């Protein structure tokens, strides 16, 4: 399961102690469109199916200031044209029953898209936890290995000390302690 580490794969970007530079931020933005570094993002975004991509686009589109702004403008125009005397062609008089239908249609589609986006997010959460489980298993093994290695080191050091004491005792037959 665990192969020898490949040193060349370790990126140098994350090593720098300071915050991300402008160049790194640009790279991060480009990655959103291209290839992600984290396996969860790779599987979730780069390998998304057509339906998943469209779902992401749809929720990004409806949940944007552009959508809100354009919708508000359309409502204002609709109400304005259908109330003000100046306009002769009116298609939906007070109390705007057709506009009400339009709102219902919008809500009828927003609900499912909201759930679609929520499901996507839940899917990602699930994937992320699975990734965490995989990684933390490896990390725990590594920590225990470190501990074991230090314990071995302590044993070796202890042996060196004993050896030194023995040598000193043999040199001075009086056997004085420290």
């Amino acid at each position, binding site marked *: 399961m665990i192969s020898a580490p490949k040193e060349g794969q370790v990126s140098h970007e994350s090593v720098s102690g300071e915050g991300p530079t402008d160049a790194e931020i640009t790279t991060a933005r480009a990655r959103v469109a291209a290839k992600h570094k984290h*396996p969860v993002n*790779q599987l979730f975004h780069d390998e998304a199916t057509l339906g998943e991509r469209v779902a992401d686009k749809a929720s990004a589109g409806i949940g944007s200031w552009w959508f809100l702004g354009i919708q508000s403008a359309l409502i204002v125009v609709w109400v304005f044209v259908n109330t003000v005397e100046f306009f002769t062609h009116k298609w939906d008089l007070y109390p705007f*029953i057709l506009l009400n239908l339009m709102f219902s249609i919008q809500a009828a589609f927003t*609900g499912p898209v909201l759930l679609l986006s*929520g499901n996507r997010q839940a899917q990602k959460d*699930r994937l992320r936890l699975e990734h965490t489980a995989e990684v933390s298993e490896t990390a725990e093994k590594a920590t225990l290995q470190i501990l074991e290695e*230090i314990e071995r080191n302590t044993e070796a050091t202890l042996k060196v000390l004993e050896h030194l004491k023995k040598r000193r005792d043999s040199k001075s037959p009086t056997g004085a302690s420290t």
Partner: protein
Amino acid sequence: MAQPDAPALVHRLRQRHRNPNADHKHPVNKAHYDDAPLGARIADKLAAGMGSWPFIIIQSGLLLIWVAINFYGLFIKRWDPYPFILLNLLLSLQATYAGPIVLLAGNRQSQKDRITLEHAADEADKGEEHITRILIEIKKNTDLTLQILRELEAEPA
């Protein structure tokens, strides 16, 4: 130091990502999906059903058919002529149920978030215990090394 074999890891993750019935490795996923009670399972199914492309496409189709028949009077007698007040009622009914279902799904998710944090706290405790053990061991080692140094210094040159 041992690092996860990247391609194998990604492969395993992909298997579980694409198979919703796969066994989960993370304890939180196990508790949340594999051990979910009936109500939670139904909530998940509802959210998955309503938040899917088939639902949206079928709803669009029905809407178009309804409007086409009642606008142009195709095939049968119009039962809901312009401005489609009955259609409006049905769409409002749909929205009335969509809202609670969205909240149901959101509550499931926030419940999961809660367990995730509790689990993270447990893991952090475990990690701290490991680090403390390592630290104690290194201190022991340093003490021994210092003793060796003193021995060497006391040795007659």
